[in-house]
């Protein structure tokens, strides 16, 4: 509503932006059913890689106060969230494996040898941002931002990479051990940005900063806490 009311005031600066971002996410692997290399003293210190990241693209509109010191923006964002257990880096798959406990009956303990478990989710969300422009405009102009987002999970897929490919039909035996992520996720963050150029019509900005999840179980396989990343924006001044 605030955006729409402000939009009606012709004297304010209004911008439409396209955003693109990438964040590395910190999380604690859900290793309850995993038997991995561990230190002798304590099962809590399993040597298990847990890697998560998100990519997003969105469009948003911003209106600024009369003195152009503050701006309020709101829009629509598509986010791809990926979490994995056993993956050592963003760019490569694991050559090692861990044991995943499928079930324990009266007289048997059954494990599968698993290289990697990956869960990917797609979200549609609404980002809300408050920008603060405390400095005079130059070729490089610094500004600050506080942001929040509420997103709805559209779909999720979990896949298992077995060491023994004959086990592939039994993917559900592994994925059923994990809880589904929550349908709604919310985040809050802060960042510092820099506007590049002095054009009155087109602006490029680059932002970086931390953010955190306000809810748990955003991923079923890694307990995600928050992240740090970069966001690139292309602004068109109306």
């Amino acid at each position: 509503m605030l955006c729409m009311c402000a939009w009606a005031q012709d004297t304010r600066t209004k911008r439409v932006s396209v955003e693109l971002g990438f964040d590395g996410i910190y999380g604690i692997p859900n290793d309850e059913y995993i038997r991995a290399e561990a230190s002798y003293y304590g099962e809590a210190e399993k040597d298990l890689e847990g890697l998560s990241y998100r990519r997003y693209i969105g469009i948003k509109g911003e209106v600024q106060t009369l003195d152009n010191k503050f701006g309020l923006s709101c829009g629509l964002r598509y986010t791809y969230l990926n979490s994995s257990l056993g993956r050592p880096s963003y760019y490569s798959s694991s050559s090692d494996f861990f044991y995943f406990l499928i079930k324990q009956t009266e007289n048997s303990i059954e494990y599968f040898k698993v290289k990697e478990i990956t869960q990917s989710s797609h979200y549609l969300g609404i980002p809300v941002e408050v920008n603060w422009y405390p400095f005079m405009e130059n070729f490089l102009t610094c500004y600050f931002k506080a942001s929040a987002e509420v997103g709805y999970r559209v779909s999720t897929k979990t896949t298992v990479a077995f060491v023994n490919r004959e086990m592939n039909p039994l993917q559900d035996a592994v994925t059923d051990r994990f809880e589904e992520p929550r349908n709604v996720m919310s985040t809050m963050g802060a960042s510092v940005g820099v506007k590049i150029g002095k054009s009155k019509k087109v602006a490029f900005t680059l932002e970086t900063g931390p953010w955190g999840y306000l809810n748990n179980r955003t991923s079923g396989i890694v307990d995600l806490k928050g992240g740090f990343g970069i966001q690139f924006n292309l602004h068109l001044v109306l």
Partner: protein
Amino acid sequence: MRVKLFALLITMSWLMTGCNDEAVLQRSVFVNDPQNPGLPKYSEVGYNTFGAYYDRLAFTSSEVVPIKVIATGGNTSFKLIGTRASREMAITLTLVGFSAEKYSDLLALDNVSLDLKDSDNAIAIEDESTEESAQILNGTFHFKRAQHVLVDAQPVAIVLSGTFEFQALVNGEPITVSNGRFDVGVGTDNFFAF
């Protein structure tokens, strides 16, 4: 020279990584029991640990091979190998008349409780390479659970879990072993039949 050394290091680290992963199920995972400090918590998942208080001092499993099972002459012995006060030590339980031809025969021990006083079964205690037979005064050895371990639907080991305690005379000296618990895997590498 530097290139060769680098290549050697890479190869060694690759080999070590590979070996470690293959052996994960054989590794010991010591989860401390807060109720009984110094002993591993009782478990039934094959953590390859055991522990007991031997005259109030903790006797706990070796990280390398915590148990050897030796079947010979119609008897089967379970040798628990560990340390007590930094000294190597072992307690061996011999089941007289129980003959296991292969490690999977140990599944027959599921929920078997032995009264050590009223049976022919024997306990021997090895301390720094000196083995002594123990004259049992009282005690029990309870195999609470014997389970197959299946990996990718193939059997790879048997996990034996349970508890034990006894009082005995060793060289005429009375000793007490209390709060004993074990959760160990037995497979082709630590089962011997001859």
